[in-house]
């Protein structure tokens, strides 16, 4: 029973001011100028996703969708593409003015690729934001934690040792995401365990160092496997660099369930991640089970990462760029970061893919190269702005 509310002394606000506490203590107090005094229930709202940001995120996804489908070796008018996309909705019949062949390009070639980009980008950014919250570490990301390397090693092993035998990687066998999931969980467990070896107060740096060590170790294992199985090196290598497959809707169908599962679990915990930001002890005394939530969230984020990696290879930096941009622009609550990271992450990757396949057309730049080219400088920026976390 919240007693302090029940028996609050009646009277003026002055009566409830503790004796001996001056009304306006000197030192460090801001003046009241510039904003009207707020009474209970005034306009100040708790952290949450503002409608305009949600709309901006959805708009970004739609722009990426139309741009991604319109641009390519054969450029299509965006208006017609938008009409054709609307035609995919039940009950909509618009005349887009596109030929049969162009419609086929839209629905069978480009749309699946753009949708896959949206899913993979959304997953990577969501997983990044989730890891950053779970580990209370602004640098946590599927790549720095070794999660992606674990998935990469597992997928390489699956391909070279025969689990994916016969099938080209495009048209990914169902076993690949599962192998990636096992690999990513194993890697995150190693990183967390190594980081925890530093004791209770492990610093952000300890965890990242552990992630670097684990990544290097797993990458070495992967290189070794590739050396031993040079026949599949081409196949693995093109996947490693990161690329969005163009295998029609097959990969989309394979990634979609993981996407839904990860998004639901992580987004449901968005407020809990805010509570976890005060640390395990305080979260426990507030009635939570931090360790239980942490394991669940790590599993969900790793599952999402695994699905993304198995569909598109190693695409770096999305998990860092996007959540940090959202944090800088829209707010630091996970109720803001997580949903917006998912939307903007998807849009970012789909648009990056446009750059990847048009900048050096007819050749394609691996998308992982493009994101890393953008991500490197951005990473420095993030380091500069989050320096206080390390001080």
């Amino acid at each position, binding site marked *: *029973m*919240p*007693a*302090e*509310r029940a*028996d*609050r*002394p009646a009277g003026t*606000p002055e009566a*409830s*001011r*503790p*004796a*001996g*506490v001056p*009304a306006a*203590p000197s*030192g*460090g*107090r*801001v003046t*009241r100028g510039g904003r009207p*005094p*707020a009474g*209970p*229930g*005034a306009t*100040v709202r*708790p*952290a*949450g996703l503002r409608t305009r940001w949600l709309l901006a995120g959805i708009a970004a996804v739609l722009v990426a969708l139309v741009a991604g489908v319109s641009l390519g070796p054969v450029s299509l008018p965006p208006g017609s593409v938008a009409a054709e996309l609307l035609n995919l909705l039940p009950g909509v019949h618009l005349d887009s003015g596109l030929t049969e062949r162009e419609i086929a390009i839209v629905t069978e070639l480009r749309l699946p690729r753009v949708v896959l980009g949206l899913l993979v980008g959304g997953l990577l950014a969501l997983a990044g934001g989730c890891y950053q919250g779970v580990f209370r570490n602004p640098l946590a990301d599927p790549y720095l934690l070794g999660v992606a390397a674990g998935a990469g090693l597992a997928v390489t092993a699956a391909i070279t040792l025969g689990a994916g035998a016969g099938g080209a990687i495009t048209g990914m066998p169902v076993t690949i995401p599962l192998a990636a999931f096992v690999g990513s969980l194993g890697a995150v467990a190693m990183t967390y365990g190594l980081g925890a070896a530093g004791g209770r107060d492990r610093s952000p740096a300890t965890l990242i160092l552990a992630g670097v060590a684990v990544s290097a170790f797993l990458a070495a294992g992967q290189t070794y496997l590739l050396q031993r199985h040079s026949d599949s090196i081409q196949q693995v290598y093109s996947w490693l660099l990161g690329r969005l497959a163009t295998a029609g809707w097959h990969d989309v169908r394979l990634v979609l369930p993981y996407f839904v599962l990860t998004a639901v679990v992580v987004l*449901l*915990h968005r*407020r*809990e991640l*805010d*509570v976890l*930001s*005060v*640390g395990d*002890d*305080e979260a*426990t*005394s*507030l*009635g*939570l*089970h931090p360790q239980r939530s942490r394991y669940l969230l790590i599993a969900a984020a790793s599952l999402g990462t695994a699905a993304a990696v198995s569909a598109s290879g190693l695409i770096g930096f999305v998990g860092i760029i996007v959540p940090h941009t959202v*944090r800088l622009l829209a*707010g*630091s*609550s996970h109720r803001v970061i997580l949903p917006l990271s998912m939307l903007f992450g998807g849009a970012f990757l789909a648009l990056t893919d446009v750059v990847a396949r048009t900048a050096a057309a007819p050749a394609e730049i691996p998308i992982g190269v493009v994101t890393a080219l953008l991500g490197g400088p951005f990473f420095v920026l993030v380091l500069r702005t*989050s320096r*206080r*976390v390390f001080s």
Partner: protein
Amino acid sequence: MTGAAVEVRDLRVELGGRPILAGVDLTVAVGEWVTVIGPNGAGKSTLLRAVGGLLAAPGVVSLFGTPIRSLRRRDRARVVATVAQSPVVPAGMSVLDYVLLGRTPYIPPLGRESAADLAAVHEVLDRLDLMDFDRRELATLSGGERQRVFLARALAQGATLLLLDEPTSALDIGHQQEVLELVDQLRRAHGLTVLATMHDLSVAGEYADRLVLLADGRVAAAGPPQEVLTEELLSRHYRAHVRIVQGDHGPLVVPIRPR
């Protein structure tokens, strides 16, 4: 309400094979302010952690007559609120959002705050004179202001037992008094029970009804400040050279340079 606010019987805690608490008994009556004192490493914080449910202390801690083990975490969080020694200040979090964290035990798992939670928080902010701060980032506040915000979060929890671990160690002498007066005023107005740890012995004696002196994981002395703050006890357990001066609100401990 049955029994005391806090009842600890023969609490033994080992951390890493080293005994921290070796059979501690402690009783805090409802509405009482008890402060645990003792030299560094005596186990003060550990005792507080056990009472707050942060340590597995099988069956020896009861809150308001209920063994702490049989309380679910959420229910426990409605009974006892802790202000940690140096609480984490999440980057970018506003005062309002921080105090709202105190409503966590009332918010359904995976749910969100209700209007009632928001109203409760506004009332606490109002009571602690923090209304002008609600949009400010917690990290930009001064030490004294932050301490009031930490208190506000604990009060928003609606718990009647308040655990304060070194609540004033980061504050200058003026803000120490401000915060402790505030705690005492809230305690009297709302029937709160306070269990604190403190290093400053004079301040501890002035505000507590009873002091508990921990040394080497045991209760070396317990009782009203006059009985615990004696030159003999302090020199034995702190190895300190002090003089006791009688003040208006209890004994004052003055360190004397040994010669």
